[in-house]
């Protein structure tokens, strides 16, 4: 007799996916200019979910015009507390429709329902609540006595947290009086399109939020549009650099949230069981599709063996499979392309001499899957220690002294996140001071809050999102 958990799938009856979706421009769903569409699929089953309209440059142009009109005629003239009311309303509707958002996100993205239900959707609503409160208090946002919006903001978001990244972008933009043209990721447009419905339901003035679906070319049209005042982008460092080049000399401002190769540093006096949990959360949360993932584990050499043994035992408990099952811990990889990338970089770990370990797990036949994997015996010179894998793959390195840990942690072109595990408070403060990372967690990992600024050093990005710092990125200061 064993205690095997029976399947506990979340019902999908609550979501109503249309066969085809248009673009959301000027408060309405409209057809794109061309007849071109692309499919969005469920990565856990490879089943096509819907046909999505493809926005060409001319569609992007329409969206920007709509946003500009809404900005100059309605949104910038509205009393700040009225703007705040819309945000509160959106937040409440998101909470009311939380289960719908959670199920839809899981179907479109592949991430487990436990995470969409407990993290993505509640945090997205929290971002709207938080920024709703700011709308009439912008003088205290740190942009001086005369804070003003930029105007029309072009926002491009990734596929790893489709709804949450939308919230990170849209909520502060609207609170500060900007209007938005948002491009969701090609593989995960559905929750953004459901959010468009929420905007309608909330009675948000037409054109304040516009959503254009498409691929890199659509994003490029948005970035290069002359009437866009600011770009906010979350995605890969490569694309981020391209955006920086494209807007150089145009006067557009930008916030870029890019890649990372976060160091999770474990000292020998760490609370070991919670450290193991933190490591697991750091790299296997959201299938490792997290820019701030703790993908490089730096362990003090004298506790390496004990820690790895405990870690392996814990990883063996991870439940991989149907993302809609409420007991699933690790869902599907978002796309075939991402799976191929994870496989390619990971295989370099094998060929460069690191030791691969994965627990036994039965992966479904259909869909895109990768088992939780750790590589031990990794050195700084290995590709898997340098490049962002963006998957459930952990590279384990060791260090001997605290200074060596810091040096290795900082020895990367990235600088988004880091974790420190020790029971010694003074060492936490010492290490945090020296780590070149925008977000540092101590004795925890991957914790997010709308009040806390998030962003990177070096090639991990420009600017901050969240908190007062994130808010000021959507404001211009100085004299009128």
């Amino acid at each position, binding site marked *: 007799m*064993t205690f095997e*958990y029976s399947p506990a799938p979340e019902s999908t009856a609550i979501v109503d996916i249309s066969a085809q979706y248009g673009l959301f421009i000027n408060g309405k769903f409209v057809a794109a200019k061309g007849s071109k569409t692309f499919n969005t699929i469920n990565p856990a089953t490879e089943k096509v979910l819907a046909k999505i309209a493809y926005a060409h440059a001319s569609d992007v142009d329409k969206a920007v015009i709509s946003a500009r009109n809404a900005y100059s005629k309605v949104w910038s003239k509205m009393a700040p507390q009225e703007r705040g009311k819309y945000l509160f309303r959106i937040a409440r509707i998101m909470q009311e429709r939380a289960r719908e958002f959670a199920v839809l996100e899981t179907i479109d993205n592949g991430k487990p329902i436990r995470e969409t239900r407990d993290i993505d959707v509640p945090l997205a609503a929290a971002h709207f609540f938080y920024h709703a409160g700011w709308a009439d208090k912008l003088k205290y946002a740190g942009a001086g006595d005369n804070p003003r919006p930029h105007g029309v903001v072009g926002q491009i978001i990734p596929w790893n947290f489709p709804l949450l990244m939308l919230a990170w972008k849209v909520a502060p933009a609207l609170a500060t009086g900007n209007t938005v043209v948002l491009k969701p990721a090609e593989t995960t447009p559905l929750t953004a399109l459901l959010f468009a419905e929420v905007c309608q339901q909330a009675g948000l003035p037409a054109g304040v939020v516009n959503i254009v679906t498409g691929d890199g070319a659509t994003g490029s049209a948005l970035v290069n549009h002359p009437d866009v005042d600011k770009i906010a982008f979350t995605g890969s460092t490569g694309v981020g650099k391209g955006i920086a080049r494209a807007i150089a000399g145009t006067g557009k401002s930008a916030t870029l949230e890019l890649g990372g190769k976060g160091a999770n540093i474990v000292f020998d006096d760490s609370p070991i*069981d919670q*450290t193991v949990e933190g490591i697991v959360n750091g790299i296997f949360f959201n299938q490792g599709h997290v820019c701030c993932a703790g993908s490089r584990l730096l362990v003090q050499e004298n506790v390496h063996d004990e820690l790895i043994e405990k870690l392996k035992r814990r990883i063996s408990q991870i439940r991989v499979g149907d993302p809609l099952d409420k*007991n699933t811990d690790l869902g599907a990889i978002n796309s075939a392309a991402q799976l191929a990338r994870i496989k390619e970089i990971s295989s370099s770990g094998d060929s460069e001499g690191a030791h691969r370990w994965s627990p036994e797990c039965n992966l479904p036949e259909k869909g895109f899957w990768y088992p939780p994997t750790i590589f031990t015996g990794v050195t700084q010179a290995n590709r898997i220690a340098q490049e962002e894998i963006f998957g459930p793959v952990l590279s384990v390195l060791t260090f001997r002294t605290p200074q060596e840990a810091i040096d290795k942690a900082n020895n990367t072109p990235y600088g988004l996140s880091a974790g420190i595990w020790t*029971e010694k408070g003074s060492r936490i403060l010492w290490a945090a001071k020296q780590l070149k990372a925008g977000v540092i967690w101590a004795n*925890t990992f991957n914790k997010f809050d709308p009040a806390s600024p998030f962003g990177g050093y070096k090639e991990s990005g420009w600017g901050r999102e969240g908190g007062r710092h994130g808010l000021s990125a959507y404001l211009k200061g100085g004299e009128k």
Partner: protein
Amino acid sequence: MLTKIFSFTRAMHSNPFSWQTFFRYNFDVQLVDGTDASIRRFLKELPGVDQVGAEARAAMLATRSIKTASKKWAIDCAISMIDLTTLEGSDTDGKVRALCTKAVHPDPTDPSVPSVGAICVYNDKVATARKHLDSIGGQAIPVAAVSTAFPSGRASLEVKKQDTLDALNNGATEIDMVIDRGAFLSGDLVKVFTEIVYIKELCGDRAHLKVILETGELVTLDNVRKASHLAMAAGADFIKTSTGKISPAATAPVVLVMLEAVRDWYAMTGIRIGVKPAGGIRTTKDAIKQLVLVRETAGEEWLTPKLFRIGASALLNDLLMQRMKLRNGNYAGPNYVTLD
């Protein structure tokens, strides 16, 4: 005096036919020889517990959704793990006999319901319980006695020993002793340790020893881990959260930390120590959450009444009602299970 105790402990532990006992004997010699210094050194080596992290892990495990076949299995498993308990000043022979009858056949209408793990009473009710169980076919159900001046533990060692002897002589085969929390909190670890050793010595081969930490009075999770290891090093067969007289009792983070302790102890010594949460586990949902904690912390091997018990009284009826609901498809209500 300590030397004497420990030579005795060793003699007791050094059964040459069991390599596990042999290992434990060696382990005692290596790490804890009963001196204050050795106990401190041993407990200091233990890693700390981060409370926020432990609470988060326990909360995450509480989201596990146990349905259909797994729920049916879990309900029967939980019933078989219950230490059906009455520990009231108002306990009478009649009350104890009623409880024993229920322990053997929890649901008189359904013989497929398993018997509970044990009956747990004060020492003066042990004889009544044993006799009644034997007379109704419950010979296999052990009687556990709370002991050592339960629940406070505030009595002399002599009184505690006599308390335990009474219970053993009346037929108890499980002793649920309390540790001296005052001594633990004041740093007198030797006192806590030696009391357990003495009681274990009395239990000998006659009874299993469960050591109640009363985690609600130890408060911090660091203390829970330390007390768990201290009790195991002193000879506990089981570590138990609470007396049921203090709140909070068997909270999920506390049980998590204790399960981690027995898991680590097994890794060190090859010996599996049992865990018994007690107090506050009243519903089927609560009980299933406990089983999930066991499965994902200590492991499947602990999912047996030999290694996991739940100290409870009201829980049994809720499990029976949920069991009926799974069987019949509808919820029968409290009048279809027996009140005792």
